[in-house]
């Protein structure tokens, strides 16, 4: 029941209505029973077609009746082919009238497609015109859009014609989201980027920026063009890659991280570890010991394999039948070593920009800022300024970005949670870039109003992490990939869940003062960190439990919590 207003009725009116309904029901029941008995008795005749047509005209959603009609036509196909073709040609105007009354009937659209395929002389051009007419009435009817794509495929209409159709629709109404969507499917097919799968070649891309910009300058509150613009700004699909290989001699462990979550237990995705050129029969594990897919995998080496203070060792990981590989050298006397891709070189957080593209985006940034002067409360424009500054120069625009976020939170409070998380993501990215520039393994993310943690898979080498003074509720499971973490500062948050502080083999100090830990069970994950030296829990409700410290000692027998 969609969009039917409930009307207050008098008793008399209600009675009249009831009678009407009863009459309708009676007719329906008689017709349904007749159709059912014909079907049961195998009476696949013209009368059956008439009866089902009468019912379907009233309600095209009764799937079984469409099925019955198709059964009749298939039954006739053996020896009454001419009649079949005649009925099929009459089926089209009948369906058209059904769809006029109920343009969102799945059953009617599906039957129409079936009829078109089974008819011998389908006029696909005519059918395309019908789609156009229906879309003129409701430009967002997704059933009709899907039908159009089906017709286009059968009629062999080139993608370029369809792109032209979307241009027409968009030029008459910028807020036709369905047409923008269709463009996003057509463009990568017509103008594929030779290097980035699924993306659009640059010269066409620049034209699309202009189109989107025209649209949102005409009506800055219309979301369709802004969504499209965000897609244009997007990145290509992340390619498979090994992003880091790390080895620790004291832990006898090799860690490998990947550009996306993988399942090394899957035979096709097997990774082979070579130690000094000899394949090592490795048993890969995920740090959280739970997930099936993970960015990070670790492998224990048998004692003695990396022996010899004077010897250099080579750890080589080969993946996807050797197409992807990475190695790191453990020099004589070193305890650990790694080889990691750089976030800056890989453009992990910005875009690969040609001179043309960067000048277009800079120009666009200028015009967006002009638009913002005219419409200082426009959330789409604010968000786009933020996105543009991120792809152009994240650190250079850092403080301006924060001002824009503040404004966004004020003008669009419904999406407070989203904006805060997005800001947190960018703060983490900036923190990671700064750490890379400083060439340290200490990540400072304290007092940045973080509501969530992002990019934990890029922190595998971090030894010290400071996230105190934020608004975190959870230290998520993905945190268990911080396998080098020694010191964790997370004081003054709203943390009530530390499930990610789990299986961290070298974690020594954990500060969790002034959080929302209230039960001993919430501390359970700590028991899997076997090198813990100190845990600070002051200012948590859990501290007030009777005999708390005795219980804590029992829980963490190997630690000396302060």
């Amino acid at each position, binding site marked *: 029941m969609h969009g039917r207003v409930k009307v207050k009725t008098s008793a008399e009116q209600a009675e009249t209505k009831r009678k009407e309904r009863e009459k*309708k029901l009676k007719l*329906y029941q008689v017709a349904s029973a007749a159709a059912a008995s014909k079907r049961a008795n195998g009476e696949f005749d013209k009368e059956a077609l008439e009866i089902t047509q009468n019912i379907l005209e009233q309600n095209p959603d009764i*799937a079984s009746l469409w099925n019955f009609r198709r059964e009749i036509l298939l039954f006739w196909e053996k020896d009454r082919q001419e009649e079949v073709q005649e009925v099929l040609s009459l089926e089209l105007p009948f369906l058209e009238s059904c769809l006029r009354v109920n343009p969102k009937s799945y059953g009617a659209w599906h039957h129409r497609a079936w009829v078109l395929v089974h008819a011998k002389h389908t006029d696909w051009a005519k059918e395309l015109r019908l789609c156009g007419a229906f879309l003129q009435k409701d430009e967002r009817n997704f059933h009709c859009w899907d039908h159009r794509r089906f017709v286009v495929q059968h009629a062999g209409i080139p993608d370029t014609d369809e792109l032209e159709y979307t241009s027409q629709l968009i030029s008459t109404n910028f807020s036709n989201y369905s047409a923008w969507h269709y463009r996003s499917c057509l463009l990568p097919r017509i103008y594929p980027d030779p290097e980035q799968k699924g993306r659009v070649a640059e010269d066409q891309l620049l034209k699309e920026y202009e189109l989107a910009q025209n649209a949102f300058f005409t009506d800055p509150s219309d979301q369709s063009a802004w969504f499209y613009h965000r897609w244009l700004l*997007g990145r290509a699909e992340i390619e498979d890659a090994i992003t880091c290989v790390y080895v620790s001699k004291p832990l006898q462990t090799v860690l490998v991280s990947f550009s996306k979550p993988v399942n090394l237990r899957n035979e096709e995705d097997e990774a082979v570890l070579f130690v000094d050129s000899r394949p090592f029969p490795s048993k890969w594990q995920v740090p959280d010991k739970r997930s099936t897919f993970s960015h990070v995998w670790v492998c224990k080496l048998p004692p003695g394999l990396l022996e010899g203070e004077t010897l250099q060792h080579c750890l080589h990981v080969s993946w996807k039948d050797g197409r992807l590989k990475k190695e790191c050298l453990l020099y004589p006397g070193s305890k650990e070593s790694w080889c990691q891709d750089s976030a800056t070189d890989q453009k992990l957080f910005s875009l690969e920009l040609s001179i043309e593209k960067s000048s277009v985006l800079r120009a666009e940034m200028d015009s967006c800022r002009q638009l913002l002067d005219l419409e200082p409360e426009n959330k789409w424009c604010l968000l786009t300024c933020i996105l543009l500054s991120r792809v152009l120069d994240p650190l250079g625009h850092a403080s301006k970005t924060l001002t824009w976020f503040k404004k966004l939170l004020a003008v669009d409070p419904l*999406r407070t949670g989203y904006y805060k998380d997005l800001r947190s993501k960018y703060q983490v990215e900036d923190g990671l870039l700064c750490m890379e520039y400083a060439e340290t393994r200490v990540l400072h993310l304290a007092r940045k109003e973080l509501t969530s943690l992002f990019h934990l898979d890029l922190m595998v080498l971090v030894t010290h992490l400071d996230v105190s003074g934020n608004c975190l509720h959870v230290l998520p499971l993905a945190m268990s990939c911080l396998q080098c973490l020694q010191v964790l500062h997370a004081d003054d948050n709203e943390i009530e869940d530390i499930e990610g502080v789990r299986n961290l083999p070298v974690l020594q100090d954990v500060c969790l003062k002034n959080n929302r830990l209230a039960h001993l069970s919430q501390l359970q994950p700590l028991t899997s960190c076997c090198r813990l030296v100190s845990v600070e829990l002051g200012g948590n409700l859990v501290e007030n439990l009777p005999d708390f410290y005795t219980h804590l000692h029992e829980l963490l027998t190997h630690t000396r919590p302060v």
Partner: protein
Amino acid sequence: MTEYLRMSGVYWGITAMDLTGSLTRMDRESILEFMRHCQHDCGGIGASQGHDPHLLYTLSAVQILTLFDNLNTIDLEKVVEYIRSLQQKDGSFAGDKWGEVDTRFSFCAVATLALLGRLDAIRMEEAVTFVLSCMNFDGGFGCRPGSESHAGQVYCCVGFLTIVGRLHLVNADLLGWWLCERQLPSGGLNGRPEKLPDVCYSWWVLASLRMLGRLCWIDSKRLRTFILACQDEETGGFADRPGDVVDLFHTLFGLAGLSLLGETQLKPVNPVLCLPEETIQRLGLHLQLLN
């Protein structure tokens, strides 16, 4: 006049009753008796007696029987066989033997098999590939490759990927943004850009955000107010929008939405299968959501 979707109607009704803690007030025996007449020789289940089998009603039936803890009312091996028979070459699922393909049916297939503990029965890699081929520029999903994103379809595809343990393949930040932009000033949620709010999207959008670990991206308080405004004071049921005619469909999804928002008068609902959490736990089904 509604028997062409009766099986789903029964599911909406009894799940709503169970969420409110009133399942015992339903006539369980007569429902089970009704269901015995709806399974066809091919294994599929129809909306009611005399109606053809379809994946939509097969899932509804298995959900109902799960709630009643009475799965053996029907021939389960045949149900599995039916689902298997509907998988197409490209991994997609047809809704019935007439071949309509839609990501809704991919969801119906794996949801039913998950409830029966038989996910091994289909070609999973191909099924995943097909669903991913329906992913769009906005991170959402449509009915078929090239179809526009729609919140109902997003729920089906995100639910599908959750059930088969591949939720990491979704661009959660991008899709989460599109989903939270469904919230309108009234507090209600729509299913696509520029559309009106509707109570059923309180479920399709909210459950998707819950699976993606991003429920806090919408304003819960305002949504709660909107859902409650759709409850009809005379009958107690829920309509799509305030002041409209109520029905079982919107009543279930209104209640389920309220449950996800933490309404304590209702049982907690499972965001993937839209059954009470306690039922999913009884089955020992583990569905990993993002956090």
